[in-house]
């Protein structure tokens, strides 16, 4: 099993890398095997193959989540590619709870009065006419 993993892993990494990471760090022109800046930024120094796969899978998850949220599949690839590893993790962990900046309109009438008061107190900024 271990041997199979060892044989298969490089292919899995290669296929993910080719399909989902259009802009990887360029290979160095002056020396081989340099530690990349991305690698050094991970607290533990080097990224193990296993973590690399997990991260690429998590890019896949984000891609699926964006499609589920109505993003045009033709746009999804480039949108995910422009996210940093850290942002991919954040999106994966809590896209549902993330604030989605949207609008100054569309507040329910039921809370109109409360927000009117808080606007007048200078705590909120919902109704422009209170200023």
């Amino acid at each position: 099993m271990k041997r199979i993993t060892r044989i298969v892993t490089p292919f899995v990494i290669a296929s993910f890398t080719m399909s989902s990471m259009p802009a990887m760090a360029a290979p160095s022109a002056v020396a081989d095997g340099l530690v990349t800046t991305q690698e050094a930024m991970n607290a533990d120094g080097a990224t193990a193959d296993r973590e690399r796969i997990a991260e690429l899978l998590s890019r896949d998850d984000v891609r699926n989540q964006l499609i589920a949220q109505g993003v045009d599949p033709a746009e999804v690839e480039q949108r995910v590619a422009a996210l940093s590893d850290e942002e991919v993790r954040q999106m994966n962990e809590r896209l549902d709870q993330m604030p989605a900046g949207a609008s100054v309109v569309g507040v329910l009438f039921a809370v109109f009065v409360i927000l009117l008061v808080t606007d007048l107190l200078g705590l909120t900024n919902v109704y422009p006419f209170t200023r």
Partner: protein
Amino acid sequence: MTSRSIPSARWSGALLFLVLSVLLSGCATTPPLSEKTRASVPERHVIEEVPFHGQRDYQCGPATLAMVLAHGGRPASVDELIPKVFLPGREGSVQPEMLATVRRHGLIPFVIPGMMDAVLQEVGAGHPVAVLQNLSLSWLPVWHYAVVIGYDLGEESLVLHSGETPRMTVEMGRFDATWARSERWGFVALAPGDLPASPVGRRSAKAISAFESVQGVEAALPAWRALAERAPELALASFGLGNALAATGDAAGAVRAFRRAAESDPEFAAAWLNLGLVLRSLGRTEEAGRALRRAAAIEDPLQSRARSALDSL
């Protein structure tokens, strides 16, 4: 009759007070500014040349991006930005994708420290600040992106391009109450080579690295140079510069940068390892050996890589 109504009035007063204090857990006083900021920024400043793009429907994210991109010299229309950043299912745009879209358009998004000082420092330096606000209350959020383009210290007010209103004046206290609900999230979008006026650090290096993986090393090089110069003690900045120089063929420059990274953080194994590898490729075997031995001596996942490089010298 009167003897009964007095206690009930007192109770309802107490209840009202309780309800209000639960609702209004926040305070609209003017946020404190450090004396240093007050002394270092102009009394008032409005960045006149930020073009206004009004939002339609739920498109304050794309509209905000259109304004900061145009100011950074990379104009893009709201219509062109919508498919890049808008999430139909959420009827809005999320923070990571706001930053990602800035990257796709060739500017570097730097998230600024969550303080009013940072906003004033940026605006004072001519950098409009994109901010996320919750205009309403925390339990009934109305999330909104806007661009801070100016301030007036004397009047304690800010000037924002927001929603459908260009140059909206908002008191600093009110703004801060709405901004605090997003944990004071905001960013500036700068051309590679320009840096935020507010303090830089590890987070700035991460911003450049993320930009580099989208736009490539040539595009990021001026940003690494600028950060390494501004923060010579920040090992990660010199390290990023070293890699960018190595990738663009400047071996001698890379040696200098990696050496500075290793000297500012002697426990930074990756810096010693890269320094050793570049020296080796230059045929400076003796110096390479010294650097690689330093890398191999540090307890780190890179230790084995350093040892095998040392063996192959």
